């Protein structure tokens, strides 16, 4: 019954979900109950864990450009990680960002890769292409101990969560600007077989409208 105790002591302002330790997942859906990909969930323990997981070594992540689309739409990085932009299109791209996290620009010829770009502080950087305004991607830089991105099925898995009380935050690029991201307190118990937590995000339409044969938008 430790999970029940967790519920009782939860914050009065935030809803608390009690779930089991071990394998746990969040299922993200939109208002129409369709699974939402590219949502980022972070779980931050309210109290320091007795044995925090060792910090992973810095990694280099790839953001590709295919069919005038950045792939992936959202790339998660840790502070100290680097990103490489790769142009897999047959046309030139001009990748840039003016975000507070990092401002940069790369002109990439077809088949070319950028130099690794190190991101050293947490935050979200919107990245565009100055040639193709409809191209958009996000670099989500976070030092949260537990972080994941939803796939097309809307599921974000957290493989081995120690028991404890966490603050869950779920972000998506199409959340209404200026509105707070979804925040919820969850209590992880040492029971097993907890069902996934379903969260619903009201999303704006996808802004990555490609240049259609009926919309030129130059």
């Amino acid at each position: 019954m430790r999970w029940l105790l967790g519920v009782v002591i939860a914050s009065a302002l935030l809803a608390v979900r009690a779930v089991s330790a071990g394998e746990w997942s969040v299922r993200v859906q939109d208002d129409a109950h369709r699974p939402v990909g590219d949502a980022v969930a972070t779980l931050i323990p309210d109290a320091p864990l007795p044995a925090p997981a060792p910090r992973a070594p810095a990694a280099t992540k790839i953001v590709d450009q295919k069919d005038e689309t950045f792939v992936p739409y959202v790339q998660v990085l840790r502070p100290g990680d680097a990103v490489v932009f790769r142009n897999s299109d047959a046309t030139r791209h001009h990748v840039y960002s003016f975000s507070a996290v990092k401002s940069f620009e790369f002109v990439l010829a077809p088949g070319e890769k950028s130099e690794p770009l190190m991101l050293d502080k947490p935050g979200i950087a919107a990245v565009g292409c100055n040639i193709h305004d409809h191209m958009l991607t996000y670099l989500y830089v976070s030092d949260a101990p537990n972080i994941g991105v939803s796939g097309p099925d809307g599921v974000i898995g957290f493989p081995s969560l120690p028991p404890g009380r966490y603050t869950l935050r779920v972000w998506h690029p199409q959340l209404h600007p200026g509105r707070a991201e979804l925040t919820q307190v969850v209590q992880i118990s040492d029971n097993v077989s907890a069902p996934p937590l379903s969260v619903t995000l009201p999303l704006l339409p996808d802004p990555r409208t490609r240049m259609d044969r009926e919309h030129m938008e130059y």
Partner: protein
Amino acid sequence: MKRRVRAALMLIALVAIPLANAQDITVHAYLDARLVAAPDMTSWTRGGVGKTRYGTADDGLRFGGAAVAIAIQATPSWLAFADVQYQTTDRSTLDVIEAYLRYRPVSTTPWRASVKVGAFMPPVSLENDGVGWTSPWTLTPSAINSWVGEELRAIGAQGQLEWRGKRQTLALSGALFKDNDPTGTLLADRGWSVSDLTYGMGSKLRVPDAYARVFGDPDHTRYNPFQEIDGRWGWYANLAWQAPGYGQVQLMRYDNRADPAAHTVYEGSADVFAWHTYFWSLGARTDTGAVTWIAQAMDGGTRIDPVPGLGVETRFRSAFLLVGWNLGAWRPALRVEHFSTGKRVNGSPTGRGESGNAVTAALNWRPRAWLRVTGEVLRVIGDRSELKALGLPTHFAQTQMQLSARLLY
């Protein structure tokens, strides 16, 4: 003017093409054929006073038009763009709707500046953003954007400054232009139309034959709307606001600053005037779920002083509301609009003008990316008291039906 457009196209070819890789050249095109059930009133495109593109003798299979738009990304900052169309309504013409060079360097701040030089559409329309100034919602654009497609073009330079915030984007653009002195002629002589016949540089517009017989030169009913007569620069300024989740709003002021007393000889006719044309335009667009709403209003005037001491001004107004449903391959759209003109002489209303309403219902079907099939019914109804002086009935009530197949590339 033709020489300037030709020079602009040559400049684009000389500057842009050698700098661009083949992969940086984008081509889009359309080809349209349609079945037409036309109203029994001679269309303005045949010298009549009918408001629609098609009228008497236009029933049957028609060539709707074709256009090719080429964009050349010469360097990461320089874009060359040209939109060329072929039309057979009115008369066969191959003409240039837009041809310009754009310089837009990257900015790693929220501010981004760009400059456009050449011949281009002022950013009036929230309807027409397709190849050949077409609309994805209906075959026939609103009366406002029908007129823009007929007579409005800027040949000059436009500067734009954007501020891109997290919640909203603001864009202020301003242009100095020439070669648009006769704009307004049609609104005064013919009134508004609801027609998708766009004119480019190289084509000539036609005033109603009956008007030319009574007030003008019956042997010369055509004029080039894109010519310079008085040597003055015109200007426009446009402020656009866009916010995700809310939509966009844009406000424009246009003034061609034409000298209303200036006129020129054109193909033997001495009555092509510089019409001093000015207007405000306010447009907005928003989405509620799968439904898109577009509204626009225009209020302005156009004036000539045909003889010293005589100022003839036509005030014009129009507004529309369009609602479109984005249902995947199906895209129904409905538009209602009102339009009017009123003539004043030396500032005093004459009681002459027009007032009308139009309803357009269209059903678009995109079974393939390269095919659009559209069925459209357009009803225009109103009165044009101006026609009394020409000995014509003043009431008009027209229904035009079209079934179009449009190939898209």
